[in-house]
């Protein structure tokens, strides 16, 4: 399978190349949609946020700078903000239940063709899943619901100090996992 050079593709998108745009869509739509669905929890809203993300790719392709990070990271950052903005507009209450979705499954055996980074992302995913429910919940509310520490404290009914400690401990564990890769 020929390697797709993201930098070349996004430059072509910046010049109005529609085929390059659809190639990037086909490559990354599933990743973007996984994130918007996780944040919004509603398939229709998630599809709209996914569509908006790629429309922003079309209009902002000229702003992408490869030295700042991968195209996928840039796209997912846009997707997260788009979805969080939509979440705030919809004034949706944060999801308090355990975020585990039975359809959200990584294969435990890595593909032979998978990139080294994908193995690290899988490990980080499992590290998140391995957190205690309390620690996983603060990560979920902070990162996938866009809440501040004081907002998390209010939603969960915890003292602010407890939220700060749990969030710090959770991030330290994830940092160790990521750094060990």
């Amino acid at each position, binding site marked *: 399978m020929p390697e797709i050079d993201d930098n070349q593709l996004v430059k072509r998108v910046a010049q109005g190349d529609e085929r390059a745009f659809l190639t990037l869509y086909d490559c990354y739509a599933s990743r973007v949609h*996984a994130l918007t669905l996780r944040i919004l929890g509603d398939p229709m809203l998630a599809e709209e946020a996914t569509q908006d993300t*790629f429309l922003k790719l079309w209009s902002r392709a000229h702003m992408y700078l490869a030295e700042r990070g991968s195209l996928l990271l840039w796209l997912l950052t846009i997707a997260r903000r788009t979805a969080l903005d939509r979440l705030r507009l919809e004034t949706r209450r944060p999801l308090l239940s355990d975020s585990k979705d039975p359809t959200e499954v990584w294969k435990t055996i890595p593909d032979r063709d998978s990139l080294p980074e994908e193995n690290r992302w899988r490990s980080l995913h499992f590290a998140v899943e391995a957190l205690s429910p309390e620690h996983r919940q603060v*990560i979920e509310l*902070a*990162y996938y619901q866009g809440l501040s520490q004081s907002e998390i404290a209010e939603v969960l009914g915890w003292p602010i100090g407890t939220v700060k400690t749990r969030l710090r401990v959770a*991030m330290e564990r994830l*940092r160790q996992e990521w750094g060990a890769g």
Partner: protein
Amino acid sequence: MTYYEHIPFRENIPAYALGALDAEDVAALEAHLQTCASCRDELAVYRATSDNLLMTLPPQKPSTAIRRRLQRRLPSAQTSMRPRLNWSIGRMAVGMAIILMLALNVFSISQVRVLQRQQTQLMDQMQNGQEALAMLSYSNTQTFPINTESVTGSLLLDKEYNNAVLILRGLPSITADQTYQVWLIAPNGERTDAGLLRPQIDRPFISEVIYSTQDLSNFVGIGMTVEPAGGSDHPTGQQVFRVDF
């Protein structure tokens, strides 16, 4: 700074990397980060972790409808929806004559465009100035002073009408590949792009209307940074000022 004085800042770094630090703590941490290389290194590590959290979700294929909707929004789909023209020889001759006339008048047309651009800029400046004057007369308009080492001015804010105007003097000059970018600051520290501006060399001050598609009541501050031309998705450059409201 002693190790113990660092602790409160270091403890806030993971939350800041996640975008979850409360607004009242963000300013203090950001000020500290400007002077502390070790905390900046610490932040870089936590940012790498939080960035890669984005990648940890297993892919979920969206419906094929999204791709179709995106294709319909692309320029080629828009063009194909317009009625096609039948090109007769007569029409082609007329077209060639028009092209010839345009080619012969290229210099005049470019001059006219330069004048039109200048006229548009002047009208924008007039409109910004009128907007600022109008806001000063509203009783609900709040005024927030801006006072840094190099930049002075004011932020005029009317949350009822969702209007804001920045009046600034003394903006340092920037290079041709840079721009100033304005950010609206949310309570959790997240920044939302509020537009780009490049001050004109011959004007000592600027007034700029801030347009937001969102309710300004959702934000707690406004800031400006120096960014690469074309702007950035999030602040990456030097902060010019920040004002909380």
